[in-house]
C-alpha cells in the first residue's frame, strides 16, 4: 500500500497506484496521478476520464474497450472511435491507465 501526495495531502493508493477509497476521487487527484507518470492531462484526456466516471456511476464497473470505443465514436466522431486513438492518449492501455486516473477500480481477471 502506498501514498500519493496531492497538493500537500496524501491519499491512499494500492500497489499499482489505484485509489483505495474510490469516493475520495477529485480532479486534483487525477492530475497528480497523471503527473506522476509524466502525463499532462489535456481536454481530450478529460473527455475520456469523464466518460469513464459517468459509466462507472451507472454500471459500477469500467466499460469494456468495445463499449468505450463505441461511446467515444458517438460523442467525438467516428475517427476517434477506435482503440488506436485511446492508446495514443493512454499508452499503458485505456482500460488500465485511464481507469486509474478516473478513480475506477482496475479491471481484474483474464483481461
Amino acid at each position, binding site marked *: 500500500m502506498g501514498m500519493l501526495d496531492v497538493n500537500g495531502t496524501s491519499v491512499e493508493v494500492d*500497489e499499482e497506484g489505484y485509489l483505495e477509497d474510490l469516493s475520495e476521487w477529485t480532479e486534483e487527484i487525477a492530475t497528480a496521478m497523471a503527473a506522476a507518470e509524466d502525463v499532462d492531462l489535456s481536454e481530450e484526456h478529460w473527455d475520456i476520464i469523464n466518460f469513464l466516471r459517468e459509466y462507472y456511476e451507472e454500471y*459500477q464497473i469500467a466499460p469494456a474497450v*468495445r463499449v468505450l470505443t463505441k461511446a467515444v465514436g458517438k460523442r467525438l466522431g467516428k475517427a476517434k472511435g477506435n482503440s488506436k486513438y485511446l492508446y495514443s492518449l493512454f499508452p499503458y492501455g485505456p482500460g488500465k491507465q485511464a481507469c486509474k486516473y478516473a478513480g475506477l477500480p482496475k479491471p*481484474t*481477471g*483474464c*483481461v
Partner: protein
Amino acid sequence: MADYEIPKITGEDGIVDVPKIVKDTMVGSGPWISAPKFQKDMHFATEIEQSEDGKWTLIPNWKEAALEKMDDLRGRYRSLQLFLDICVKCGSCTDKCHYFIGTKDPKNMPVARQDLLRKVYRRYFTFAGKYFPKLVGATDLTEEVIDDWYNYYHQCSQCRRCSVFCPYGIDTAEISMAAREILNHIGRGQKYCTQIMGKVYTIGNNLGLPQRALEDTLEGLEEDVEEETGVKVAFPLDKKGAEVLLITPSADFFAEPHVDGLMGYAKVFHELELDWTLSSYASEGANFGMFIGSYENMRKIALRIRHAALDLGVKRIVFGECGHAWRVAYSFLNTLAGPFDFLDPKYPVPQHVLEITWPALQEGKLTIDKSLNDDMTLTFHDSCNIARGTNIGTEVGGQFDLPRNVIKAVCNNYVDMNQDAIKDVTFCCGGGGGILTDDLMEIRIKGAQPRMEALKEVTENNGVTHMAAICAICKSQFTKVIPYYGFSMDQIVSVHQLVSNAIVLKGQLTEEELEARDAAEEAERVAEMEARKKAAAEKKAAKDAAEKK
C-alpha cells in the same frame, strides 16, 4: 518498454536451444501478497501485518500451520505423497519448462521447483530426513524457505509439460498447487487470485461485472451483430427454461479478441436455433480455486454453476473458450458439484462449445464462406490445460483435432507450428495458473519465449499472420506480451472469431444491401433533422410574428 532483457528469437527452427544455467536470475519477492481483506473471503489466514516498508509478516504460528497443512494435503491427495517420494533425479524434466528456458534460472527446472517442497517434506515426514537430513537433502522450514516458495511457486503456470517427460509421471502442477495452498494458510496468499475470487463470490465473475453492466454489454453486442449482418442474433441472459446454459470466462464480455469469440458462439447457436442463455449468477467459467490449490474455494465456485443450472432449469451445460475452466469442468465438475442427473443424458456433461460447432460444420448445418478469412494465414496455440488435462469430443486426441478441424473448415490457410511445440507437448503461453498479473510481467514475457520462437518460425517460413487460441488467459497473455517480441497484439484471435467471420447467417444482408440499408438510415436521419429544423424555424417564425403583433 521494460528494464529487463527480452529474450531474442531467431525464427530458425521454431525451438529455443536449451540455455546454460545462470543462477538466481529470478530471485525476488514474488507477486503482491493478499491482504487480510482478500484473505478473509477465502477463509485463509488473516493474522498478518504490514510494516512501514511494505513487508508483510507471516501468521504467528506459521511453522506449525505450514507443516500441519502439508500433512493434511499429503493425506488428502495420495498423488502428492507419491510425487514427493518417487523422484529419482533422472533430469528428464530439467529443460522442458518454458520458464526455465526463458529465464535460465535453475530453480525454474521442474525438479528443482519440486525439491523446494520435497526437502521440507523429507525433513519432517521421513525417517531418513528426521535423523540424517544432510544425507537426503532435507532442510528445516525457515522464513527464507517460505520466501523461496512464494517466489518460485509463482513462476510455475501449472501447465504440466514437464510431467509429459517424467518417466514416473510426477506432476509439478500438483506440487505447485499444494505449495500455494500451504502458503494461503500462513498468510502468503496471492492478491491477484484472492481478489478475483472475492469478486466471483460477491458479484458473480472475475471482472466484477454486475448484472446490469452485463445486460448492457450483451445488448451492445446484439446491436453490433445486427449492424454488421442485418440479422438479430440474441445474447440471452438469465432466461428461465432455456435448453443450454453457456458458461464462459467473463473476459469474453470484456476483452479483445475474446468478445469476438463470444459473437461467434452466439451466431452458431442462432443458426442451429438453439435455445440458450447466460447466467448473471454464474457469469464466470474461470475457477482460480484450482490455481491456488484450494479445493474448498474451487468447489464453492463450481457450485455456482450447479445452482444457476438448477435455477434456470436448463438441460445442458456448455463451456466457452477457457482453458482451465474446461479442465475443471471436464475433470472435476461431477465430483465438485454433481450429480448432474437433472440434465439431458443425451448430451455430455459438460459439453465444450467446439462439440457443438464441429458436428454442425460436418453436417453442413452452417453456411460458411471461407474466403472471408482469406486475409489471414492461421496457426493454432494448444492451451496447456486443454491439451494435457482434457479431451474434447469422443475420439482420442479430440482436444487437438476439434479446434484445428473447425479452423480449417472456416479458413483456407492453416499451418501448424513445430511439432515439439504443439499438442501434448505444447508450450504454455506464459501467463497461466494465476500468473496473468502485471506484477509478474517479467516472468510472463520470458516464459513466452518458446511459443514466440515457434510462432516466429512459421511467420517467416510459412507466412503465418495470426495465431488462434481457445483460452481467455492465452489470449490476454499473448496480446500483452507479443509486442515485446516484435508482433502486434491484433495477431491473436479467438477460434470462434474465425467462425464468426466466415459464417453467413440465414437472411444475412449482402454488402450492397448493408450499404443500401445504411444509406437509407442516413437519409432518414437527415430527413428527420431537416424536418426538425424546419419545424423549429416555423415555430420561431410563428413566435416572432406573435410577438410583433
